[in-house]
């Protein structure tokens, strides 16, 4: 099951050229761009590992793309996303985040049902990959 998360999630994966164009927009808007990766793609897992430091004072997307490619090379079987942090007063949060790399095999999620009292039901999602310990998931 193809994971869809963040901006552009229902489009096909972005090409490097498209990634550059998006990063260019972020840099022109003054956002700090980060590269993050994880092997726990649960939708509520907001804390992904950072690849290096947030990239301040970079002027051109080529520098960011260099880091993305370095991360892809080191972590080919991980989800990698690019996020853009807007530090302007009153915003101070992520403005954009999209996936730039995904593992070849994505087992997807199980819908877990739990009976409660009466006829009420509690639902949760569970990633099949997360059954294995960290580092062996993909």
């Amino acid at each position, binding site marked *: 099951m193809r994971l869809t998360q963040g901006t552009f999630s229902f489009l096909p994966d972005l090409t490097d050229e498209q990634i550059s164009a998006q990063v260019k927009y972020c840099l022109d808007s003054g956002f700090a761009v980060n590269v993050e990766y994880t092997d726990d793609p649960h939708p509520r897992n907001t804390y992904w590992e950072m690849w290096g430091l947030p990239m301040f004072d970079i*002027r*051109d*997307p080529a520098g960011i793309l*260099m880091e993305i490619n370095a991360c892809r090379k080191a972590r080919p079987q991980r989800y990698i996303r690019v996020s853009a942090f807007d530090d302007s007063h009153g915003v101070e949060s992520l403005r954009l985040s999209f996936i730039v790399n995904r593992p070849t095999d994505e087992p997807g999620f199980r819908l877990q049902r739990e009976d409660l009292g009466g006829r009420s039901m509690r639902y949760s999602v569970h990633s099949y990959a997360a059954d294995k310990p960290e580092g062996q998931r993909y």
Partner: protein
Amino acid sequence: MTDAEPANEPPATSDDTPVDLQEELRNAEIQDVLDTLDRELIGLKPVKTRIRETAALLLVDRMRKKLELASESPTLHMSFTGNPGTGKTTVALRMAEILRRLGYVREGHLVAVTRDDLVGQYIGHTAPKTKEVIKKAMGGVLFIDEAYYLYRPENERDYGQESIEILLQVMENNRDDLVVILAGYKDRMDRFFQSNQGIRSRIAHHLDFPDYTADELLAISKLMLADQNYRFGAETEPVFRDYITRRMQMPHFANARSIRNALDRARLRQANRLFASKRQLTRGDLMTIEPEDFLASRIFSEGRPDGEQSS
């Protein structure tokens, strides 16, 4: 093929397709950068000629690309050699602007670094540091001042070599993303290139910055003063000319930089002179540098530069 061909025919197919270089020149708005270069940079004839030639090459290259002729993007890494104060950094700034207007670099900013910014202090420190700088310079110009300090043959465990290797790789693989300019004194740069053939072969343009003549320095000083809303008094110019010729003979003469320092000291003396005069001052007084502001210099009294400490 003739003009009667339908309009949707790609123009690149004919050898007779007219090419308007002048039009292209105007579109690139390159002419006014070259003009300001001419106006604001005194002297430096060989440098200006080389910049014009480079601009022409890039412009023709752009035309060729438009007409779908094969155009390998040229190597534009440069080395600027010359004595201190001959305008290497200033020219590098202009170069970045020219390259941006010609669409050769995307942003056209200048990242000026020295050895300290590139080379780390312990194992594993150098590569991230160099890469960080390179990332910042992407889309612009990376200006490495006193580049020969990167290579220290006398210390075989020096990390400079690692930095050079990363630079070499980037200069080769990211030719479209950034332009590297190495700058420094001529003799030391020559030695640096001799022991680093890899770098030498990746640099196509070697620009040598000549020293300024006394007349050029005088013209430069006038430009500097005009920028700060100062001017020479009627008798000041010959005195300052004399100052320049004397200063040029002395050690540690750093061309335009020495002139800037001399002017700064003259402003200091002028302020003190005005303060001591106790008469009604005018706007003109605040702007004018008088001969005595230079004559008080140790260059005239003791024959050595002001900056030097007396024993």
